[in-house]
Every structure is written in structure tokens, then in C-alpha cells.
């Protein structure tokens, strides 16, 4: 075969293999394999199923079909960056990497490429400062909100005072796990509780030392910033040492069903935050079953529907879809660009009425986004595991974080980032 024929064959193959042109490209940087797959899979299922629902039921968003491009990151930062690089050329509108490590790497890249990054309840907390992080959004809540919500909940449980109490933070020894430390240190100084920090190395399969230390120091409460196997082992170890489970509170990445089921009945009473309420009877789930699962287009095997992380993935997709719809409305075009989506995200307003209309009433709080606030209002609920019934039960309504504590930290960290990267803060 001549070189020309080979070249022609290669070209034909490439053209034949090229995906059909679709207008709204949404990469899904998922992880369905590896040690964190148990968390990555339901989130990705929810994320994809919602976009598939919009395609099947509504013909896409504003008449434009959504094309999902899935890329497996394995929760590995290098692979996550590779996924970003390999998918952005397809016309990617928005990234949701579900990893703080990947997020930190993508912030400069996405900013340079002018593609919005949505890191819902994870990533760099100070990205809430929209004047510095023009292309990054972390609404509806961030880690520092979570830390503050936890402390506010404990204040409520203790008659408004934590003076003299001892609180231990068991955290994943990574950028993610270290995020709440500064906030908790500030809150510790403000409210007079003693804070013990206990790091757990990746992946967290072995935590005997940390829990023996907790057994010795007898804190009043243990807070946890865990992910993956660290959560399941921590719940089991807490039960092993007889720590009162109702005084053990994980953040919203430590509060899925699979975090507690391996410990069985021993996990009963464990608490966690949640940024999204769960309700298996939501009308949107019925629609997903009818239009997506029954049509054989489910992203997974359909077994995760209604679970904590599935609901969160679906919620994330809904926020992206609402941003797209808002951008289409602002710019008067349906085939929007990433820059136009950024505008849509920056003026997004989520109301309770809209949530009801979308069939997911109460899943998330009402909030609005602006140039100065990419972080939403930071609300979170506290839920408790009922092992007998095998379900999470909401204990509280949405709790407000203490902005007087978190905002100065956000301003300070964002200013430092701006200085390091020669960014002049401002709105686009």
C-alpha cells in the first residue's frame, strides 16, 4: 500500500470515527474504577442520567442536545489533567472533576482556556471569590462553610457554648483533608474549644493509631474529612473503641450509604453533613426511570438512583443545566460557548419554586450567584444513619455557616492567590 493510500485510509477512518457534531458538550471526569470508585460511580450515574433525561424528555436544553464525554480519572490527579486536556478540544462547556487534587491542577488551566469549572462543595474554597477566580464556581457550599456549619450545629447541641469542649478532626492527609483546618482553628479560638488534629494517610485502610489516640484523649466530638475507604474504616474503628456514634460527624463527602453499611448495626447513630437532601420519592427520579433507565440509557446499572451521591451528581447536573439555560437566555443563542456559560453561571438564581418545577423540590437550598460570590450561601443539613432501616434521616433543616469567620479567610486566601498569579481582581 502506498503512502498516499495509507494517508487516505487514515483520514477516512478518522472522519468515520469522529463523533457526530453535538452542540452542548459536557465532559464527565468520572472514576468508576480504583479505590474511590464506590463514591465516583453513583455521582457520575446521577450526573449523566440527568443530562440524558433532558435529552430524552425535553430534547436537550433550549433545543440543543447534550453530548456527554466520559473520561475515567481513577481519582488520580495526573489522569484527571490528561482527561481535561483530551476533552477540552471537543468544545467542552464545563468541568466537574469531583476531586480537590484535580481541581487545584485545573484552576490555572481552565482559567487560561476560559472554560468554567464547577467544584460543588469541594476544591479550592477561596474560589468563592469570583473577582479573583473568574472561571471557577463552588456553589452551593464549600469546605469552610461545612466546618462552620458543623460547629454551629454543635453550638446548638450545647446550649450555644463549646467552651472547654474537646473536638478532634480526623482528616484525609491531602489537600482535600487539610482544607477545613484553618477555619476550625479560628472557630476554636472564637468558641473556646480545644482542637486535636489527626491525619490519616491515603487510602486510610489502617487507622488504628488515630483511634487509639482518640480513645486516650476522649474528645467530646470527632469531626471527619474523609473519602473512600477512609470513611468505612473510620466508622468501624469508632464503633470498635466504643466512641458514641452520635458524637461522630462526617462532612458531606463522608456521609453516603456505602460509608456506613460495611460496619452494619455498629454504624447506627453516625452523623454527617449533607448539602443535598435525599428523597427517594422525588418526581425527577420517576422521570429518570421512565425516560432513561427503562429506555436502556442508564449511565450505570440503575441501582444507585435516590442514593446520597447519585442525588448529588444529579443536583450538580441540574445546576449546570440551569446555568446553560440562563446563558442561552442572556445571549439569545442556544449553541452557547464556555464564556457565555460562565455568564450564565455568574448570574444564576436557584429558587425553591424552580426546584419544585424541576421535580427536585427541597434537594438544595435557594441561592444566587454573583461576580463577588461564586460560592452560594453555604447551607448544610445534619443527617443521621438509621442502621435498622438502612437509611439516612435528616435531623435538621439547613444550617447557616458563620460568614463572619469564613469570608475573611476567603478574602485573605484569594488575595494571596491573586498576588502569586499577578491577577487584578475584577468582574468580567
Amino acid at each position, binding site marked *: 500500500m502506498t503512502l498516499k493510500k495509507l494517508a487516505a485510509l487514515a483520514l477516512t477512518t478518522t472522519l468515520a470515527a469522529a463523533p457526530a457534531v453535538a452542540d452542548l458538550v459536557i465532559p464527565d471526569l468520572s472514576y468508576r*474504577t480504583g479505590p474511590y470508585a464506590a463514591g465516583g460511580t453513583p455521582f457520575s450515574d446521577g450526573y449523566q442520567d440527568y443530562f440524558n433525561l433532558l435529552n430524552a424528555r425535553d430534547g436537550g436544553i433550549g433545543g440543543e442536545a447534550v453530548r456527554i464525554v466520559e473520561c475515567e480519572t481513577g481519582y488520580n490527579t495526573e489522569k484527571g489533567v490528561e482527561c481535561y486536556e483530551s476533552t477540552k478540544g471537543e468544545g467542552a462547556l464545563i468541568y466537574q472533576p469531583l476531586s480537590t487534587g484535580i481541581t487545584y491542577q485545573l484552576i490555572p488551566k481552565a482559567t487560561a482556556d476560559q472554560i468554567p469549572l464547577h467544584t460543588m462543595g469541594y476544591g479550592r474554597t477561596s474560589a468563592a471569590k469570583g473577582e479573583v477566580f473568574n472561571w471557577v464556581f463552588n456553589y452551593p457550599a464549600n469546605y469552610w462553610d461545612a466546618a462552620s456549619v458543623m460547629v454551629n450545629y454543635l453550638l446548638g447541641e450545647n446550649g450555644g457554648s463549646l467552651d472547654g469542649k474537646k473536638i478532634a478532626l480526623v482528616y484525609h492527609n491531602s489537600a482535600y483533608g487539610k482544607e477545613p483546618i484553618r477555619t476550625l482553628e479560628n472557630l476554636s479560638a472564637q468558641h473556646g474549644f480545644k482542637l486535636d488534629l489527626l491525619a490519616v*494517610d491515603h487510602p486510610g*485502610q489502617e487507622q488504628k493509631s488515630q483511634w487509639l489516640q482518640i480513645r486516650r484523649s*476522649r474528645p467530646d466530638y470527632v469531626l471527619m474529612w474523609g473519602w473512600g475507604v477512609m470513611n*468505612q474504616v473510620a466508622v*468501624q474503628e469508632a*464503633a470498635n*473503641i466504643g466512641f458514641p456514634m452520635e458524637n461522630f460527624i462526617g462532612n458531606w463527602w463522608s456521609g453516603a450509604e456505602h460509608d456506613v*453499611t460495611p460496619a452494619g448495626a455498629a454504624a447506627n447513630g453516625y452523623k454527617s453533613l449533607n448539602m443535598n437532601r435525599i428523597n427517594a420519592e422525588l418526581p425527577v427520579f420517576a422521570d429518570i426511570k421512565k425516560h432513561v433507565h427503562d429506555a436502556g440509557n442508564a449511565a450505570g446499572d440503575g*441501582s444507585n438512583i435516590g442514593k446520597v451521591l447519585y442525588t448529588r451528581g444529579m443536583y450538580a447536573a441540574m445546576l449546570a443545566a440551569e446555568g446553560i439555560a440562563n446563558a442561552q437566555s442572556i445571549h439569545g443563542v442556544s449553541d452557547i460557548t464556555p464564556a457565555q456559560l460562565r455568564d450564565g453561571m455568574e448570574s444564576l438564581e436557584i429558587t425553591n419554586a424552580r426546584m419544585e418545577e424541576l421535580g427536585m423540590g427541597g434537594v438544595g437550598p435557594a441561592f444566587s450567584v454573583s461576580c463577588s460570590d461564586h460560592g452560594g450561601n453555604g447551607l448544610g443539613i445534619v443527617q443521621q444513619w438509621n442502621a435498622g432501616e438502612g437509611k439516612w434521616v435528616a435531623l435538621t433543616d439547613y444550617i447557616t455557616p458563620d460568614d463572619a469567620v469564613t469570608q475573611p479567610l476567603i478574602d485573605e486566601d484569594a488575595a494571596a492567590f491573586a498576588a502569586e498569579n499577578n491577577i487584578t481582581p475584577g468582574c468580567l
Partner: protein
Amino acid sequence: MPTNVLYLIEVLANGLMAGVMYSLVALGFVLIFKASGIFNYAQGVMALFAALTLAGIMEGQVPFAHMINAVFGTKIHHFGWHVPALAAIAMTVLVMIAFAWAVQRFVFRHLVGQEPIILFMATIGLAYFLEGVGDLMWGSDIKTLALGLPQGGSRWLEDATAGWGGDDFYGFFIDKLDIVATGVAIVLVASLIAFSQYTKHGRAMRAVADDHQAALSVGISLNFIWILVWSLAGFVALVAGIMWGAKSGVQFSLSLIALKALPVLMLGGFTSIPGAIVGGLIIGMGEKLFEYTFGPMIGGATENWFAYVLALIVLVFRPQGLFGEKIIERV
């Protein structure tokens, strides 16, 4: 006795118990390396695969259900029955024997006489292949192993020792699962030693370990012995998978327990079964002691790296490890 000393004893005791858990993983490495000179990178994944298979069989899960459903448009996930634990363990052992045969038949038979680095590379490929097959067969969700293993601190011991050093000593904590693991490890090691000393196939295994050529010349089938060794390593992997899986549920991070076995092997030696046990105990005790004494001063989470520091120190002075065979190269 001062409280601090009592807590130190508690840390050491728990370190020893943790060391036994590491040894359970290290044993599988030693068996294969001793008999065939292959450093089996896939040992951790074998533990994961064995535990996944056990959990899948017990739950009556249909293997490859996701793939079958995708190809045939069906919606099957479970057979509708649950298999009792002992029967499921026996079936998992059969699966691991089949796996050993397949590894020998399709991989290592074609690599006889190759450099050790090639064999090592083959086990890396095997590890990723097995991880993928495990995922396809049983799915990536976390599975609970309902074997009825005891969990939690021994209340009897806690109550009996509480208050020894004053009111701020709450009694010794020993996890009941760790006690079971120690018993299992003792039985396992005794059985392996008895098998290799007193049975025909065990002696043949030792002969192969000593000298492949000499073993061949007296009529020992290398092929059979290697299948036997991989089967034994598969069984050890199952035991390790059960013990670790009981703590965290059976999930893909189980494959990373191999990382805990590496310093044990470096310290104990790659060719000694007692070395794997003693190495595990030293690593377990050493890392827990370091975390207890120095961890709080330097931010904690020292165990992963300190285990390797300990192993490196031994390696510098005794490259073959504490119990490994001395390396003699004749010019």
C-alpha cells in the same frame, strides 16, 4: 504503673496485631518468590479478587452481570439465593486454583527462562488485568462480608484492666478481629510449614525453590509445582482479603494493602515464611510506636513512610533482609 507506660504497652500490643495483618499479605509474596523467583506484584489484587469472589458468591451475584445485560438486553443481577459462608469459601478456593492454573498456562509457561524483570513486568500486567476482571465480574460497589467475624474491643480485657494506672487509664484495647487474625495466621503458618516439611508435594516445592534444574532432573513437574504455589498464594490472598475486608468492606482499595506488605518483605526477606511473620511484627510495632511517640510532634500520619524507613535501614546493613537467604555471587 504510670498511665503512659500502660498506653505504650497498648500501642505495642496493637502494633503487633497490625503486624500480623501485614504478614498475612506478605506471606503470599514469599510463597511465590521462594518457589519461582517471581516478585508477584499482583498479590494485593489477588487478595481483592478473592474477597470480591467470596462476597459475590455469598450474595448469589451473577458474575459479569453488567456485561451480560449490556449484550443480551437482560436485567439479571442475582441468582436469588445466598450461599453459606463455608461453601462460598470452598468455591472461592476452587476459583483461585483455576486462576493459578490459568496464570501458569497462559502467562508463565510462555516466559520460562526469561529475566526476572520480565516476569515482574508480567505480574504488573496481571495485576491490572485481574483488577479489571474483578470489576467486570462483581462490580465496583462496596460489599459487606457477612462471615460473623467478631469486631470491636475486647470488653472483658478493658474491664479487667481499667484503672490500673489511675482513673485516666481506660483499660487495654485489643480488637477482637485482630485476635482472630493472629490465630488464623498462626494456623496458616503452621500448616504451610507442616505442608512443606512433611508432604510429598511440599518437599517437591522446597526442591524447586532450592534448584529448578536439580528438581527437574529427579522428575518433579515444575508446571504442577508452580500451579500449586500460585494456588497456595491464592488461598493466602483469600485469608488476607477476608481479614482486611472485614474492616472496611470488600472494595478496590483492598488491592493497596500490598503496599503494607512491601516493607515487611524488605525487612523479613523475600524467601522466608518466618521472616514474613517477624518482619510484619517489627514493622507493625515500629510504625505504631513511632506514630505514638513522634507523630503528634510532626503532624502525624507517619506510619506509611516510617515503615519504609525501617525497612531501608535493615536493607542497608542486610540486603537479603533479616531472614532471607544470603546472596552469594561467584565470579
